[in-house]
């Protein structure tokens, strides 16, 4: 009964939404309100000269909307804080998981393939982070790729092995690095004579400004990537970990 009511109401909602879609402007038309707006043209034409990054999206995220992104970075840090408040962080060096005590070890083929692939995945993520201002990619994407590589490693080799590779004493200081880099870059902008998060400092000569802005962008990308990756890995570890007394009882 509940299913039928839900299905009928979803059909009604879908019909309503499709009716709205039928009256929307044609997709991909250059004259669409989204594509013909002033701000889109402004970003596309001036982003390279104003932000000194070739990739317009990176310019928007880190330069034009820098405050927004620093808030976004704080959101993932808050998510980590909330997850740790709910599940708790492991005591240093004492970490247990159900997968580690499995009586059936993972296949040799799988272990060999994962051990072979994980370094290349991390190399690719470093490329994604460092090339964020030149090609599609950036800090968040690279951090997510590092997190994904650690998920693969943890499911195959167990939590203990992966927590030996990235111990708590490395993760703990780096988790907040994303917001910290934003803060450092912002204060450097103040010292350079501009506003908070000014990339092209007015106090230095004009021919130095592009290089400084570019390196600040790369610095921010590295900070976001490192911080994001450590947050994802910490969330993964605190979720896959089990309470210590569970292990003692088993």
């Amino acid at each position: 009964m509940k299913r039928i009511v839900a299905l009928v109401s979803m059909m009604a909602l879908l019909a309503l939404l499709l009716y709205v879609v039928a009256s929307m402007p044609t997709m991909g038309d250059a004259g669409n309100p989204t594509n013909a707006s002033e701000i889109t043209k402004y970003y596309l034409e001036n982003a390279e000269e104003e932000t000194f990054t070739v990739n317009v999206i990176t310019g928007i995220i880190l330069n034009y909307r820098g405050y927004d992104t620093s808030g976004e970075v704080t959101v993932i840090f808050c998510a980590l804080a909330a997850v740790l408040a709910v599940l708790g962080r492991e005591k240093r060096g004492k970490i247990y998981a159900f997968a580690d005590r499995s009586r059936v070890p993972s296949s040799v083929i799988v272990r060999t393939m994962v051990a072979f692939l994980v370094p290349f995945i991390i190399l690719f993520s470093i490329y994604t982070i460092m090339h964020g201002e030149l090609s599609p990619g950036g800090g968040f994407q690279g951090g997510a790729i590092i997190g994904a590589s650690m998920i693969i490693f943890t499911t195959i080799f167990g939590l203990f092995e992966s927590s030996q590779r990235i111990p708590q004493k490395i993760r703990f200081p780096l988790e907040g690095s994303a917001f910290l880099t934003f803060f450092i870059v912002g204060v450097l902008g103040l010292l350079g004579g501009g506003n908070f998060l000014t990339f092209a400092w007015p106090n230095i000569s004009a021919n130095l400004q592009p290089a400084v802005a570019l390196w600040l962008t790369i610095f921010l990308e590295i900070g976001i990537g490192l911080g994001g990756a450590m947050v994802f890995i910490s969330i993964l570890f605190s979720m896959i970990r089990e309470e210590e007394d569970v292990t003692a009882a088993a």
Partner: protein
Amino acid sequence: MSQLLHNYQYAAAMLLFCIGLYTVIVRRNIIKKLIGLNIMETAVFFLYISLGYLNDGIAPIRVGGADPSRMVNPIPQALILTGIVVAVSVTALALALVILLYRQFGTLDVDRLFRDEDEAEAEAKAGAEKEGAA
């Protein structure tokens, strides 16, 4: 109607949204409800990215003398990057709460989680008495 066929990507996003909402309503397992929520988020991102599409558009990267007037709209992509990160954070927090619920109650079934223990016991007793009377 022909507009609906031109805007097939928007229509697909709407369909995906309804599938996600249906999953959230009908499924009793909390993890499946979360998967439905993620499908809904994906539908919103899909719609937003489609809004910025341009016919025969190129990536908004100013390299090799690319023509800015042919580039796709960069603003939806920048906004959706923020949206994806927030969605990931929400999912992580929700999963942490689900883990806590499972440790506490030993079930992920919503009907069982919301059942009043005393009421269920009284119902079972009444049922047993009825059987005894019969």
